[in-house]
């Protein structure tokens, strides 16, 4: 039943890069080698891990010894939020989050409020999904704030956040800044030194690496308690045998993403603009969510008035075009996105939203196939649309 078609769901996960596969295969084929073992195969695995650590560090302007490998972005966010809360005494556990953070941050903060005595304060966003700095400035409690979390760019609408300014507000209150950079680490990229980021969450598979591996960049001097205890790997912050092959794939993907960063931005932006203009012609009244000019160059979130995203996605899937409703619940159903609601959209509007995202393998043909499929879907659903208008 699989139809060869166009993949426009890079924000969900990107196809594995050839470089990543090439880096992983030797480690998957070779005899068992624990990167902690004191023998030749162990040293070889460890060398691959350390190469990857340097590559990941280079991607975000960190020192290699600041990279803590995790099972992915979710674990990185959880380690940052819970680890920072637990590193502070009771009474100093205020957590400030933007309203559009990923659920890995929001739900970890909610856990900390429920089970670890934290107080969560949420900074609102404007209609474009950008955190309101005036509100954010007032939220951290000086001396009693464990963490401020503002993501680099939103995963649903692509809005790039004022991370450096957020870091200044965090630091003024004596708190570290967590920047979830899962979606933005490739393009436009972050620089932890330049932006004043203390903790940065990364996921390999969004960069074209494998799933199941990510990292939390922990800047020197940032207080953090571990969540996983055991063998004491990753300087005691994340116990567990390192998945050397996956980490090597992560490193190779990071290196490839860094190498192409300068030209990837304009290339993706041109593709996205072509997509946006084509969709606007196909669906009169289409609205762009987020920041129509800035924002992640490869991400386009649109509202198709009168068209339920579940219906459009089915028709697109039938024509081999893969994209997303932006957010999904545990059952897989599209749910009204907390990001769009925070931006002031209502629930019916949120259910008319489609997220199309591009990346390293995207070409004009993919964009054109998506535009044609959306045009077809809009035509098919025209009677429904007329009825709901």
């Amino acid at each position: 039943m699989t139809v060869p078609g166009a993949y426009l769901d890079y924000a969900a996960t990107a196809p594995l890069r050839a470089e990543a596969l090439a880096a992983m295969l030797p480690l998957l084929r070779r005899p068992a080698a624990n990167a902690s073992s004191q023998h030749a195969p162990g040293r070889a695995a460890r060398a691959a891990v350390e190469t990857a650590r340097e590559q990941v560090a280079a991607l975000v302007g960190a020192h290699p010894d600041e990279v803590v490998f995790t099972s992915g972005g979710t674990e990185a966010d959880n380690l940052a939020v819970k680890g920072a809360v637990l590193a502070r005494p009771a009474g100093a556990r205020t957590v400030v989050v933007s309203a559009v953070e990923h659920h890995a941050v929001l739900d970890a903060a909610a856990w900390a409020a429920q089970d670890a005595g934290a107080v969560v304060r949420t900074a609102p966003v404007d209609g474009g999904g950008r955190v309101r700095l005036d509100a954010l400035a007032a939220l951290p409690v000086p001396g009693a704030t464990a963490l401020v979390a503002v993501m680099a760019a939103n995963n649903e609408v692509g809005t790039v956040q004022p991370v450096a300014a957020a870091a200044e507000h965090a630091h003024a209150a004596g708190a570290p800044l967590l920047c979830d950079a899962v979606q933005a680490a490739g393009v436009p990229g972050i620089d932890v030194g330049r932006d004043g980021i203390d903790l940065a969450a990364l996921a390999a598979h969004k960069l074209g690496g494998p799933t199941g591996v990510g990292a939390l960049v922990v800047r020197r001097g940032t207080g953090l308690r571990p969540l996983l205890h055991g063998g004491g790997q990753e300087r005691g912050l994340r116990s567990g045998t390192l998945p050397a092959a996956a980490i090597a794939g992560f490193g190779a993907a990071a290196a490839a993403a860094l190498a192409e960063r300068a030209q990837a931005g304009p290339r993706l932006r041109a593709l996205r603009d072509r997509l946006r203009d084509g969709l606007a012609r196909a669906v009169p009244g289409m609205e762009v969510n987020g920041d129509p000019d800035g924002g992640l160059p490869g991400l386009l979130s649109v509202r198709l008035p009168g068209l339920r995203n579940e219906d459009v996605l089915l028709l697109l899937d039938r024509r081999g075009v893969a994209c997303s409703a932006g957010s999904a619940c545990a059952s897989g159903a599209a749910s009204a996105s907390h990001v769009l609601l925070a931006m002031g959209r209502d629930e019916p509007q949120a259910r008319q939203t489609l997220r199309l995202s591009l990346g390293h393998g995207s070409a004009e043909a993919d964009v054109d196939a998506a535009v044609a499929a959306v045009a077809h879907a809009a035509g098919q659903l025209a009677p429904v649309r007329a009825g709901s208008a």
Partner: protein
Amino acid sequence: MTAAGNPPRRVLVAMSGGVDSSTAAALLVRAGWDVTGVHLKLAGTPAAEQVQGRGCCTLADADDARRVAATLGVPFYVWDLTDRFRQAVVEDFAAEYERGRTPNPCARCNERVKVAGLLERALALGFDALATGHYARVAGGRLLRAADAAKDQSYVLYMLGPAQLAHLELPLGGLAKPEVRALAAELGLRTAAKPESHDVCFIPDGDTAGWLERRLGRRPGTVVDPAGRVLGHHRGAYRYTVGQRRGLGVSAPGPRYVLSIQPATGTVVVGDREQLAIRVVVLERTSSTDGAGLRRGRAAVRLRAHGSEMGCEVRPGPGGRVRLELDEPVGAVAPGQAGVLYDGDVVLGGGTVTATA
């Protein structure tokens, strides 16, 4: 199924994750249809509150349906219809109890969400038909009972009209439940041995009275005999249904039954079995499966999903109301239930019981 050269016809199958709809999907694939599965998220019960294996619309059910679709190699989607379900079924369920009636949420769901609502959407999406795992048959544009009388579910589909029946596929209508289980096992469907679900799906613990009390609050009232003598007190009239015998909280020499519920005063009237008997049933919001309206004449009526049937005279009245004069007196007909009319195996149509005499 398809003429040579024509593309296969497209059917959307509502897949609950149970054995019936799983097998229905498999039979359609086998028959050459271009099948797409959809699981409807209806009850908004948070995952953490879901009771394993109880009710429907649990995460496990969505996973089962997804797994079956993968086994069959068909596309599969989960659609969130929690809003529509809450308004059309859940709110209606509570409101009906509040009015002193006993609703049938499955009929309501089929009417507003699961069959009629989904069919409309399927056609808009370019499907030729909608299929479900209901035990009933469609033939010659009419709705018929299932071949397996014990499993027959035509009762909850009575509200469908000709435009809907023309696009409805019910692959299980000619099969008996053991055959369906055997087919499911033969097809390797992992839902083959799954137990039946009988509960109201949005009340996973099965405690309808408790659910209503949380929703409507305590509304104390009296239990009286037909002469108005107070026999006892209760926490809410919605805890009772006409014909109910147990849990009345009154002491009386013989068994007592709920005769009627007066929602305005919260009074529950009880009496003995003979006083329960009625010979006239009035239906409202009636519809007929041929679209021409229910006609005057003889029919058999079923007043409960698993009840027996009896002969009656059908007397259509103004405003879509239909009066049924029963051949024999019957006991315990609760307002709010569906009354469904049959001519042999053919479902003529039906409506909601609004009054009895």
